């Protein structure tokens, strides 16, 4: 159980660099997800896209960096994201995490990622087990 003095309205944001072909190839190699839709522009065009689109799990990993910054990973009980739009190569994502309630030892945060054009591409929730910092005079 992690002690935290976090405020109930705390919000974090993380703006990533614009997503490049090189980044998607590096993620494909590291994750094993070599779906050509993410790494081969010809295959992406054949599938009706103007160019490759980012792996959804890369976006989730980006949001995960913020999820583990709001509270340490050891406090994380569960989290989920729903993907609602595609992330084309060249887009610049910003991830957000905002605490929505903190009841007892449970904290809940809404989490989402949006692109530089304002489109939300994924949203969900993270739940933590976090002990509030008590008044130090209490025993």
């Amino acid at each position, binding site marked *: 159980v992690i002690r935290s003095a976090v405020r109930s309205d705390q919000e974090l944001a993380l703006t990533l660099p614009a997503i490049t072909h090189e980044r998607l190839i590096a993620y494909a190699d*590291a994750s094993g997800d070599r779906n050509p839709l993410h790494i081969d522009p010809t295959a992406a065009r054949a599938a009706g896209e103007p160019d490759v689109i980012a792996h959804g799990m890369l976006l989730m990993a980006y949001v995960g960096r913020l999820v583990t910054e709001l509270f340490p*990973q050891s406090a994380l009980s569960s989290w989920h994201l729903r993907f609602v739009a595609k992330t084309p190569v060249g887009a610049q994502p910003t991830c957000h995490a905002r605490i929505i309630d903190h009841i007892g030892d449970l904290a809940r945060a809404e989490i989402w990622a949006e692109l530089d054009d304002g489109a939300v591409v994924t949203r969900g929730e993270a739940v933590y087990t976090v002990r509030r910092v008590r008044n130090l005079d209490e025993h």
Partner: protein
Amino acid sequence: VTAFLNAIGEQRAEYRDRAAAEAASYRGLPVPPTYLFTLELERPVIAYLVNVLAIRWEAVPA
């Protein structure tokens, strides 16, 4: 795991340096929370065992 950390731009010391991880109260280097998904793609049997037997992350060799 290092290639994965590089691909997602994770630079925090507690994910890369054992002493920093231990200073942050981890028993070893933690892996990022989406890493198991990639393990399922690459090593489905190991991922299955980790889930079923609830093996600690840091006990799984990279």
